[in-house]
């Protein structure tokens, strides 16, 4: 592997790193001791200066988000760790929760001190049983040592932390959906404004940060903003965890310096395309970002700006690779099914439109496509995008539109094949499809 800076995965291969003794033996919890002696506002300034951006997908500057929290509002400030990792293709936070739970806790404590928050919650997706258990154990250890609770490290600072298990709803990864869920309701997102920084959980100022974002804080506070800025690019400083999956030889979680070339990442970290096949396309940032064809990767680097220039996004870093055997209509259907299943049902365009889009892709694959189907999907997408409370609407339409835009001939050939056939004959295309679902 080329010389990427290891900030988050530095000790990931040490088998005892998840324990208090293992974590402390490698310098763990030494940074928070120092931070507790700092002016909280200085901590915020340092994080702002580091250029750290939200690693859950949106990429919003973390320090700026913290700066929105009103100080002395008379209400408590709450800190929530978004560990509801559910974006298809993404499994990076899981690695941190399982193998570095104390790093996540130390990051939480740094954020809590900066925000002067006395209560925080780790919201973990319900299916992550093992990461849940590891996190609970780590928190119990921290309480025993006096690193959580009253008068932490003799600083006079009090902080309590709980772990909350989700129960299988993708939408709770959206920060206001998460807040609703934590309040004991259906996880249906709220209209913004007001933003959570002002009115969040229990009506109080709230910061929701992704696990990976929080886990970067101990390193930043230990080594300084300038050292963090020295990694990556000017606008995308630091490192990013990339979860690589699909048709590659070495799937897994990799920490890269932002700005690393995509083609090199595929060839070196991912070990190239499996079975000697050719690369067809990638989805670089989780299933809700646009697809890139193999011929569009030249000169593209893995950072927020370069991906944006290429017409896609870094997102959560859920990097899905597809080889030449993949049928893009299958991909579009697979993801359309995901989004129609996960719609929270609050906004009509998303709740209904998602199902319609799925049905149309289905009929195209079943050999019953009609001449205007692609136009119809485009029309539906236009009525969903921008017409919903939360960004799920955009997430839903993006894979549908980008698969059709980048590979129109694959959709057209299926539809035309039907037009050429005698009526009522159907088509066998479904059984030959690689992703065919047995239902």
């Amino acid at each position, binding site marked *: 592997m080329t010389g990427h800076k290891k900030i988050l995965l530095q000790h990931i291969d040490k088998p005892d790193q998840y324990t208090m003794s293992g974590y402390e033996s490698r310098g763990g919890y030494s940074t928070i001791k120092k931070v507790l002696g700092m002016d909280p506002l200085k901590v915020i300034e340092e994080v702002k200066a580091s250029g750290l951006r939200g690693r859950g997908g949106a990429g919003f500057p973390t320090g700026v988000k913290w700066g929105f929290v009103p100080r002395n509002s008379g209400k408590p400030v709450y800190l929530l760790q978004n560990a509801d990792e559910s974006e298809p293709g993404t499994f990076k936070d*899981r690695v941190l929760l399982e193998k570095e739970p104390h790093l996540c806790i130390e990051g939480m404590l740094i954020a809590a001190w900066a925000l002067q928050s006395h209560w925080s919650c780790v919201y973990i997706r319900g299916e992550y049983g093992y990461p849940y258990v590891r996190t609970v154990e780590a928190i119990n250890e921290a309480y025993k040592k006096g690193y959580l609770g009253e008068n932490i490290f003799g600083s006079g600072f009090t902080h309590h932390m709980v772990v909350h298990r989700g*129960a299988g709803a993708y939408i709770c990864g959206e920060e206001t959906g998460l807040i609703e869920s934590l309040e004991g309701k259906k996880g249906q997102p709220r209209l913004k404004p007001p933003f959570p920084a002002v009115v969040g959980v229990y009506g109080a100022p709230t910061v929701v940060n992704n696990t990976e974002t929080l886990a970067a804080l101990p390193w930043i506070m230990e080594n300084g903003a300038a050292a963090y800025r020295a990694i990556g690019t000017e606008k995308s400083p630091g490192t990013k965890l990339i*979860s690589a999956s699909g048709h590659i030889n070495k799937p897994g979680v990799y920490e890269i310096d932002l700005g690393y070339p995509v083609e090199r990442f595929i060839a070196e970290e991912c070990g190239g395309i499996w079975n000697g096949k050719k690369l067809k396309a990638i989805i670089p940032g989780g*299933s809700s970002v646009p697809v890139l064809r193999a011929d569009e990767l030249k000169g593209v680097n893995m950072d927020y700006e370069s991906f944006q220039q290429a017409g896609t996004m870094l997102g959560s870093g859920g990097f899905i690779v597809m080889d030449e055997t993949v049928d893009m209509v299958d991909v579009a259907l697979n993801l359309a099914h995901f989004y129609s*299943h996960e719609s929270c049902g609050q906004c009509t365009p998303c709740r209904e439109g998602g199902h319609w889009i799925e049905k149309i892709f289905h009929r195209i694959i079943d050999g019953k496509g009609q001449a205007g189907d692609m136009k119809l999907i485009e029309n539906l997408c236009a009525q969903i995008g921008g017409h919903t409370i939360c960004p799920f609407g955009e997430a839903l339409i993006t894979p549908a539109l980008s698969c059709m835009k980048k590979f129109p001939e694959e959709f057209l050939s299926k539809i035309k094949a039907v037009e050429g056939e005698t009526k009522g004959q159907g088509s066998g295309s479904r059984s030959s499809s690689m*992703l065919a679902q047995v239902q």
Partner: protein
Amino acid sequence: MATFSAEADRRVHELISKYPDKKSAVMPALYIAQEEQGHVNDEAIKWVSEKVGMAPVHVMEVATFYTMYYKEPVGKYHVQVCRTLSCALRGAGQITEFLEKKLGVSAHEVTKDGRWSFEEVECLGSCGTAPMCQLNDLYCENLTVEKLDALMKRIDKENPNLRLSMKTDILGDGLKDLPRSEVI
């Protein structure tokens, strides 16, 4: 009328004390009720609503919104196969096909002896070790039909505990030599 154990009662009260608002305990309380009843039935809804001070209809709303609360009984061993893109690319379809044949039931049905059921679910965050499934609360990764078949045979013989208990925060023992996680 179903009864709930003293341990369940004690645990829910402990959980309630951890949150600024007791309604926040509705989700863990539902897990605990499900642990005792096997699924979330009317008694569970009523018990939870009394504990967390919410109207039964609001507890029902929560129980039906989230997929991990079973509204109908599932098999003692419930297999959830991830069907989303990364798993589909690496052959998840064959896993489902195999389960359908082996168990002789469709998704969401339970075998006559009450032991097995399966369903297809959305991305479980195990894309780098695809295809995969969840056996109750344990992940089973880098799956092949042969590997799953062998595991199911062992489970039928050894009857292991594969559930995460929200009463104790302990994940079942699982099967010896089956790793808890294969993610890298």
